[in-house]
């Protein structure tokens, strides 16, 4: 376990930003910390880095306690803040140089690493330009280079795709995935967009109001037990009533013009075929239902 947190609670004035959070991340995986705004993602990250102290609970990051040994943690963990900022008047290269100096990386090694990192994120050509001239996407990539020059064991990326167009976001995620492979880092990234990050995350944890409401592989969370969605046409009102009476239907919705949208339990497809055939209607669409993040929240809330 590269990260292990137990029973984390954090209070800001009167609000509990975290309320009993458990988190464990294995070495080498990409872990997605998901949740709506204000669910405690950033607070969790700041605690992992030792930038803020938990009110209660214990944390170990790479074997160190961020509360007691923040410097040891910061030496091996790279961090990309949510709204990453740079010194505008300095060039990309100089900004990274400051980071290597603060990390005490010796000069020739530092120069090599900066060149490499800028190459990896595709900013080598604009290395000498002041950051003030950079677009949002370029800044975000520079932020990733900023993490790379440290050669960290664990990279924590807070909302690495926020505010970036879908194409740019996809590029950044691909970059993260590739770098994990090349550098062998563990990556924790936070996001409020499940569909965006689900492709690259090995596991995700879903936060809501400072608690972990669900954790596991993306497929498990979005697919399993979610049932099927069917669209039925040429349905008479009797069919509607009959479907609603069956215990394996989760919901029946009248779309108008004799069309019904039915959600049903996973094993009940044959039963639907039978009834629909008996009533002389036809099924025009049938597919496994994929949950959106919102639906997952709702599901775990009802339980």
């Amino acid at each position, binding site marked *: 376990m590269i990260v292990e947190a137990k029973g984390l609670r954090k209070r800001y004035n009167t609000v509990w930003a975290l309320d009993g959070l458990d988190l464990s991340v294995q070495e080498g995986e990409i872990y997605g910390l998901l949740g709506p705004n204000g669910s405690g993602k950033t*607070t969790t990250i700041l605690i992992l880095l030792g*930038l803020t102290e938990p009110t209660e609970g214990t944390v170990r990051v790479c074997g160190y306690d961020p509360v007691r040994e923040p410097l040891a943690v910061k030496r091996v963990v790279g961090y990309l*803040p949510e709204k990453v*900022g*740079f010194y505008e008047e300095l060039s990309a290269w100089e900004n990274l140089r400051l980071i290597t100096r603060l990390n005490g990386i010796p000069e020739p090694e530092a120069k090599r690493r900066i060149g490499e990192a800028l190459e990896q994120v595709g900013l080598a050509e604009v290395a000498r330009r002041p950051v003030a001239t950079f677009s949002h996407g370029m800044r975000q990539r520079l932020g990733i280079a900023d993490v790379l020059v440290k050669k960290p064991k664990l990279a924590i990326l807070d909302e690495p795709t926020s505010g970036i167009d879908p194409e740019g976001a996809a590029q950044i995620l691909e970059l993260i995935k590739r770098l994990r492979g090349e550098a062998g880092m563990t990556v924790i990234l936070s996001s409020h967009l499940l569909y965006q990050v689900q492709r690259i995350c090995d596991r995700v944890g879903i936060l809501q109001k400072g608690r972990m409401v669900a954790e596991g592989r993306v497929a498990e969370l979005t697919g399993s037990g979610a049932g099927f969605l069917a669209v039925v046409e040429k349905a008479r009102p009797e069919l509607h009533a009959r479907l609603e009476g069956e215990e394996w239907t989760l919901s029946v919705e009248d779309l108008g013009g004799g069309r019904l949208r039915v959600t049903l339990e996973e094993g009940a497809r044959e039963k639907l075929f039978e009834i629909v055939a008996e009533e002389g209607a036809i099924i025009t669409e049938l597919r496994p239902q994929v949950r959106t993040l919102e639906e997952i929240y709702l599901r775990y809330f009802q339980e």
Partner: protein
Amino acid sequence: MGTIFWKELADHLGSKRFFILSLIILVVAGASVYLGVQAFGENPEEVGEYAYLLLFTAAQSGLPSFLSFLAFFGPLLAVLLGFDAINSEFTKGTVSRILSQPIYRDAWINGKFLAGLATLGIVVLSIALLIFGLGLFALGFPPEGEEFGRLLLFVAVAVIYLSFWLALGILYSVLFRQTASSALAAVATWLFFTLFLYMIAGVIADQLAPIRANSTASDLLRNQNIRDFVLRFSPVALFEEATLPILVPTYRGLSLLALLTRTDVPTSPLSLGQSILVGWPQLVGLVALTSVCFAVAYLVFMRREIRTS
């Protein structure tokens, strides 16, 4: 801390605001040499052996001496170096990037303060030396050892004085989230200490010990003492009181007693050590003010949550 120090120092020395303010002070340095040389030319006998120090204190109608100019405008330069030290890092979003590096949090604020201090030291020292250099041209004879010693002392006291304003600027940059607020607060404080307190001191003194046509010398003295007491809450007044004995070797204190008795006591110059003694309490006061300001800034910064949103 070294890395932070050098980065901040480079930022200061390369910034436009620093360049403009230094230019202004440079022009004033030229003017003060002119004034000093004129004052010396008018009355070379009375000035005697301390012609070089006169370059710093000579004033003429309309044109202030270099000393009062430094007391008045120096704080602006110092405050400008500090007022956005911390809060601009928050608004830029660099704070979490820097503090997630393996450095102690106090190394950051200490580095910033020391870099500001070094910048001020460089400015004051180079201007003081420049004035001496120009003086050498204008007067045509070299300064004496003691004059040079007094010059270095003056530079040290000026840097301490300006470091108070730097610490104040940093304090405001920690207390206020917006750079505009901290700049306004810093300018307000500056105006209060350089202008308003002087007015208020006079008003308070006149209320508590009014001077009438039949006032005795002790009434006058009381009025003056109250005025001085109120003024000593201002670092500007402390600075002037601390530097005058250094730059004017005959100076024995600001109180009315000294003025009244000036004709009775010999006006011979004091030795360097004695001159320092005259301004010592004020100097200690300045150091204390600086320390308090920086200590508060330090404590608040160390406890600050670094969440930006």
